[in-house]
């Protein structure tokens, strides 16, 4: 692994973001709007339901966590799609970069992109709604870590599809998170799902993350099992996504997708 090359690819996206005010605005705007909207909904539920009345900000906290996941996943896909849209894909893949270096660089860049959007949104919640996501305590780190890994995993899976099938896979890139969101039990307990959906939910890390966030905020207790299962499933899906990316890269070299990408 070469840090110079990882830094080089990071710079390519850093320059892109910093050169364009609309891009920065786009990164900050959506999370802030999303969080503000959910803040008001959260306030409403907190005063009108018994489930949430002792835990103001449960929905808002989950909205912030989900937005982080969404931004990380979409952010990773965007970095990959940028190369296709700018017809720079071939230049990137004829540069002496290892797949691991490309992925590492994109993983770091996706985190920075997500934080650019998330930090202002989190800062908004305190003065507007009197809520701090830091109420989750030290476990906030593990929940964010799990979401980050899963967001990156989805990004890598979609990028594998782009490598294998070309730009026509782009629409899938936008819809992945929406497909999984109902199973993630972001705003409701898992019992809300039909039994068959619960089985699907239990093999995804999301349900453990959001159940634990609610558990900490509502019951003021920590179920370490949820954190463990979230990380375990993440490790499984992350390894799978890396293996699939390598497989797709080799398949693309066989099918010729790399040479026609962007045309």
């Amino acid at each position, binding site marked *: 692994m070469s840090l110079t*090359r990882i830094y080089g690819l990071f710079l390519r996206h850093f320059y*892109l973001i910093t050169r364009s005010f609309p891009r920065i605005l786009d990164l900050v705007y959506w999370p802030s709007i999303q969080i503000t909207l959910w803040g008001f909904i959260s306030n409403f539920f907190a005063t009108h339901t018994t489930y949430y009345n002792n835990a103001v900000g449960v929905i808002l906290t989950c909205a912030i966590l989900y937005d982080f996941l969404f931004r990380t996943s979409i952010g990773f896909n965007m970095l990959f799609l940028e190369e296709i849209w700018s017809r720079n894909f071939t230049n990137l893949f004829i540069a002496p970069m290892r797949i691991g270096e490309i992925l590492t660089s994109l993983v770091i860049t996706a985190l920075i992109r997500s934080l650019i959007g998330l930090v202002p949104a989190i800062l908004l919640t305190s003065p507007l709604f009197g809520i701090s996501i830091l109420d989750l305590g030290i476990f906030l780190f593990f929940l964010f870590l799990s979401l980050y890994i899963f967001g990156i995993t989805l990004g890598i899976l979609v990028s594998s599809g782009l490598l294998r099938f070309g730009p026509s896979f782009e629409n899938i890139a936008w819809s992945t998170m929406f497909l999984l969101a109902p199973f993630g039990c972001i705003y409701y307990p898992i019992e809300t799902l039909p039994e068959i959906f619960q089985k699907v939910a239990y093999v995804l890390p999301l349900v453990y993350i959001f159940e634990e966030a609610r558990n900490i905020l509502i019951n003021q207790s920590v179920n370490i099992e949820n954190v463990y299962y979230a990380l375990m499933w993440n490790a499984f899906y992350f390894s799978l996504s890396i293996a699939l990316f390598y497989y797709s890269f080799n398949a693309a070299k066989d099918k010729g997708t790399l040479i026609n990408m962007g045309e």
Partner: protein
Amino acid sequence: MKNLIEVQNIKKNYGKKEAVKGISFNVEEDEILGLLGPNGSGKTTTIGMLLGLLKPTSGQIFINNLKLEENRIQILEMINFISPYIELPKKLTVKQNLYVYSKLYKVVNIKERIEYLSEKLRIGELLNSITGELSSGQKNRVSLAKALVNEPKVLLLDEPTASLDPEVGDFVRTFLEDYKKEKKISILLASHNMNEVTRLCKSVLMMKNGEIIDQGKPEDLIAKHGRTNLEEVFLKLSRSKSEFN
């Protein structure tokens, strides 16, 4: 002379379609080899295999005596490519693009390298311009600078002067001739511009339907086929129903 590119009986099949049917050729150090052929003859597929973007169905490729299959990264460090069909990130300035690619190729003296290429390719005043806002001729010179940023031993050129006006086209050809002489690099040039090929190439390969149907020095091919220039030879060969069809 040492061979910097050695292609040994490479084939590429896409399913049942044979895009390249077992071709072999070498490119020596300090040589420009022309790769000619009508659209769909297998030129781009051949270049794709040399760049490691395509996996040959069979056969072997050696760059500077290293087997491509086993030394991909090491080989990519010493080759580069330019084509009008690929571009540099449009929103970045020229300097940013050259800096990024210098990092990707682990260039040591980046500032000096960019200054050298800027002077040679007359892009000094474009360094702070947005790449996407440049004219075709300017973009071409910037792409060439990117392709030379790593001081490649092997340069693959796919239609390097397509869509350029005669003045810029001539500038690029002269630059390539001088650069090749100075650095003793090998160049594989795929082009439909026969005057360009005649001027630059020591020898040419004529491809059709995935096969090499003829090869030799431009002047020898012209004499062999009883024509007055390479374009006529190209037309004769590409229109003929050879034994290979």
